[in-house]
């Protein structure tokens, strides 16, 4: 194997593949990155049995072949090389990296022990990279982090024709985001449960590119079942990644949204977030902040009389009955942050029932129901 490649192209591609390599590999070969040179291009791959990453970059290939080297080391080397063309040559059990007068000799790992990368699922569609990244970040915030409840650490993806719904919950809050995409077949219908951490990382990585292809398996098709694949062109190179799906029953979340509302309050998001952060300072661990709505004001209170206390009121447009409700301050902050809207609308039924947050572009605009954040209240002591 022998080829020459542009330094920036190599560094970018290697860094991207190395991202998904395990830091404590269960098998030594899994710490490796597979370099496959053929036909004027270079294929770099990494796989840790859960997530696979593969990138295709143009290169001047003088002699075809493949080699497996430590991915971290290759990433460190390619990042620090001077901005000159890089030559890679496989030589016996070593790979030699030369750039200007810098020369590295890297040991290879046995290629024949390396597992085969999973194939991309077949059914797919396209969405803009930034839309997808934004939607995922809004939903992933509500995903659970407790590995003992694996199903809740995932983001549920539901596809019905051109409509995509993302949902995640950790039992205390639920985030749902809807957006549209261009499916390959207009009648595509599929669901998947993707580990939230992996999905968030993947979406972020594709955010700068133009389009992302999302690929899901059609049940019974045989290829790529239990996998979701993402592909996109980023930095001029084709990047593909697959990840294993979570298997399990995601809660039926659509019925959790209350059908009617008794109190609706609109508050400017930024001042509410600031005041919430201030008041939450005195809320001890696991104690709620109290939100009282009435008389055109939203009042936040926290703390108890034998400890520190804080309260602050801000302006709010309120329709319906006044009420007092308790929330976990961090969960409320997460929700307000994920709205990404200047005005937040709270819809309540009762202080013991969940509240729904939606965003508005302006105080008198219609609420944007593409994104809904359902938050369970905390029962207040007397």
């Amino acid at each position, binding site marked *: 194997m022998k080829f020459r490649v542009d330094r920036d192209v190599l560094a970018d591609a290697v860094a991207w593949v190395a991202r998904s390599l395990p830091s404590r590999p269960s098998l030594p070969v899994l710490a490796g990155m597979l370099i496959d040179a053929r036909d004027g291009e270079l294929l770099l791959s990494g796989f840790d049995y859960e997530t696979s990453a593969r990138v295709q970059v143009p290169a001047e290939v003088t002699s075809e072949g493949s080699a497996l080297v430590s991915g971290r080391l290759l990433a460190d080397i390619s990042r*620090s090389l001077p901005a000159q063309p890089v030559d890679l040559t496989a030589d016996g059990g070593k790979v030699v990296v030369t750039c200007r007068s810098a020369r590295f000799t890297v040991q290879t790992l046995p290629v024949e022990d390396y597992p085969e990368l999973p194939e991309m699922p077949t059914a797919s569609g396209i969405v803009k990279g930034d839309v997808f990244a934004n939607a995922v970040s809004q939903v992933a915030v509500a995903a659970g982090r407790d590995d003992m409840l694996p199903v809740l650490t995932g983001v549920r993806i539901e596809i019905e024709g051109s409509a995509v719904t993302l949902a995640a919950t950790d039992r205390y809050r639920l985030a749902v985001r809807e957006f549209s995409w261009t499916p390959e077949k207009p009648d595509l219908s599929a669901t998947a449960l993707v580990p939230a951490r992996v999905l968030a990382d993947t979406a972020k990585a594709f955010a700068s590119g133009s389009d992302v292809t999302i690929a899901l398996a059609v049940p019974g098709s045989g290829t790529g079942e239990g996998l979701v694949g993402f592909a996109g062109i980023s930095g001029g190179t084709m990047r593909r990644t697959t990840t294993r799906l979570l298997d399990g029953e995601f809660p039926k979340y659509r019925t959790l949204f209350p059908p009617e509302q008794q109190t609706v309050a609109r508050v400017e998001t930024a001042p509410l977030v600031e005041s919430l952060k201030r008041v939450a300072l005195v809320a001890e661990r696991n104690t709620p902040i109290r939100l009282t709505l009435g008389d055109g004001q939203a009042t936040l209170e926290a703390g108890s009389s034998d400890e520190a206390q804080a309260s602050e009121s801000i302006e709010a447009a309120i329709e319906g009955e006044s009420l007092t409700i308790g929330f976990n301050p961090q969960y409320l902050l997460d929700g307000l942050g994920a709205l990404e809207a200047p005005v937040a609308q709270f819809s309540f039924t009762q202080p013991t029932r969940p509240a729904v947050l939606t965003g508005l572009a302006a105080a008198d605009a219609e609420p944007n129901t593409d994104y809904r954040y359902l938050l369970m209240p905390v029962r207040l002591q007397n």
Partner: protein
Amino acid sequence: MSEVSGVWADLVGQEPTVAVLRTAARAAAARLAAEAAKSAGEGAAPSQPAGRSGMTHAWLITGPPGSGRSNTARAFAAALQCERQGCGECTACRTSLAGTNPDVTLVRTEQLSLRVDEIRELVRKSAMSPVGRRWQVLVVEDADRLTEQAADALLKSLEEPADRTVWVLCAPTVEDAVPTIRSRCRLLVLRTPPTTAVAQVLQRRYAVSPDLAVFAARASQGHIGRARALATQEEVRARREQVLSVPSKLRDLAGCLTAAASLVELAAEEARAATAELDATEKAELERALGVTGSGGRGPRPRQLQAAQKELEDQQKVRAKRLQRDALDRALLDLVAFYRDVLVVALGASAELVNEELRDDIERRAHANRPELILRQIDAILACRDAIAANVAPLLAVESMTIALLEPTRR
């Protein structure tokens, strides 16, 4: 008895269990086929109630040490991954047996216990879909070493794993698993393989002479791994001989103390011999995986190397401790077998002697001592095992044992 082949060939003398597992693997394959047919929309799949009952999602394999619990688990995993239910030749079979199949996770520990964080990671995995198109098999080879917390973490997932996940736990006896785990698994009991079966395998696989094979099979009392070591390694036989020379050294108090010290030293030496090479290989492998070239620090040293090295060294230390304990335990079991032989002769029972080659010494002792005394000697050794398991300093426990073994007639 059906003909045993493929991945099952090396499970010595476990025909009944193999039959159960083969049925299960067939039922599992039938279920996959039925699911595929159903989701491909080929109308209602033919129902196979008989086949379905053979398969379940949680198994507990128990059996005496060396009866091949983990090999059975691996063979079962291979049979589940294989298109032909365990041909032993395809990639799926080979990778499953070797532990490199992405859908077969083998959890074992060379340490004293399986910690809760390892099990948490496993539980997370259990919720994933298989990488391939068949099953995800999670094998816990040392279920008896689960800490209480770790066992608790396992319960939920063991009861209701994801559709395509299969748990296989292994433990020496069913009492080694907590009741909450036991009740969630289907139990399979392996038996102690007969001496002749073990001897045959030794001859077939390692080409040892028939005499040596029979000796190793007898001396190991059905422990296949131990039999292999005895049959193939001269120094293992030498160590065993030294252990069995202990009873003849117990003539006075000084002799007892010297014998105890040498027993403990022997175990330490065995552990050192086993770990020294392994430690170095593991370190080199870790460095290579993290990209340190062998030739002394060319290229940058990866940041996480130190942390990973530290972790590895800690693990190696704990492993050395466990190996020493295991070696001592084996020595004690050899001694138990020796006194058991004495008892067999003293009682005039017709059972086969484990230490046939020491028959003269055994008969002399059997005539000189009353069976009660011999039983007390056996009890003393077993008490010593218990004491060591309960973390008593090994030398102290062994000294106490050798003194208890002292025979009054010689005092």
